């Protein structure tokens, strides 16, 4: 169970983004998890709930986008989804395929609240 360590890293990255963009708080964090990302969505959510409570923005919401495993065939260039970890091109049967999506735990978007300067009078 290494989700705690990866979610802590995620929260650190979000905090750096908040600082860089002058946000007062973080309201929403959107991540992508695929079948080969090495993390379990359920455990990521548990780790997030645990760790966000100790952060400076405990009300931030986590949105998990679960994506399928996608690949491109090196032989015929077909793109397809991989089911049950069968790394085989449905078009030409080649097993030389490159995974294009679903093998990472990705940070997609971060929603911040930022102070809005008062409109200066015309």
């Amino acid at each position: 169970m290494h989700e705690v360590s990866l979610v802590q890293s995620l929260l650190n990255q979000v905090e750096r983004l908040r600082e860089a963009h002058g946000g007062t708080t973080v309201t929403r964090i959107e991540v992508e998890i695929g079948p080969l990302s090495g993390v379990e969505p359920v455990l990521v959510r548990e780790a997030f709930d645990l760790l966000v409570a100790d952060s400076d923005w405990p009300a931030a919401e986590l949105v998990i986008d679960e994506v399928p495993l996608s690949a491109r065939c090196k032989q015929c260039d077909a793109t397809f989804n991989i089911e049950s970890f069968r790394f085989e091109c449905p078009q030409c049967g080649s097993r030389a395929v490159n995974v294009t999506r679903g093998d990472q735990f990705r940070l997609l978007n971060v929603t911040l609240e930022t102070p809005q300067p008062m409109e200066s009078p015309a």
Partner: protein
Amino acid sequence: MTTTTRTIPVNRDVQAHRKQQAAEQRDAFTRRGTFVVNLVSSPGAGKTSLLEATARYWGNSRRMAVLVGDLATERDAERLRPYVPVEQLTTGGACHLELSLIQQGLQRLPDDDYEFLFIENIGNLVCPASHDLAEHLRVALLSTTEGDDKPGKYPKMFRTSQAIVVSKTDLLPHVPFSVDAAVADARQIQPDLAAFSVCASTGEGIADWCRYLDHERERLFGSHMAEQKVDRT
């Protein structure tokens, strides 16, 4: 002052920074000619035994060192110490090794110009699959007592490995395990996997395994170590 909501698009691998650090450390290993092997398996599959057999086979003909990870104890390091420089990395409960632990272990090894550095990972086929330890080669060990249906259950580990080593082949007459089935199952996930069968206690298959390591190192670094090779067959 009012506030406004802004969504910042990031779209980046959470581990991008760690992967970059691993790539830099790998380059450093390559520059000093150290070929790094990350050995992964479930607990008790025979990682330490394979390293003992490898060290015995090579004797003094290769400069090798080992970093061995466990949750607790120095037991594996003590087993390997008669043969090679070794440092134990204890994680205190963490289920995988991280690059920072490897870098600390490197500082404690007596030299920095090994031809082969083996990292014996924590016994676990799940979490270590997601952590790049700056290795050149990831090898998954599977023992005959674990069952030949295991590769398909741990797809990330076998997808990210370059070789599978089936260990404890001396037990094959006593267990329902087919080496061919295990390798075929693993190659459904990663067709490019090299495959070896070994018995560390009898030495069976160790020569092929060691030849493969030499070959992979030479393929990556060039043939400047060829004259040191000792033919023991």
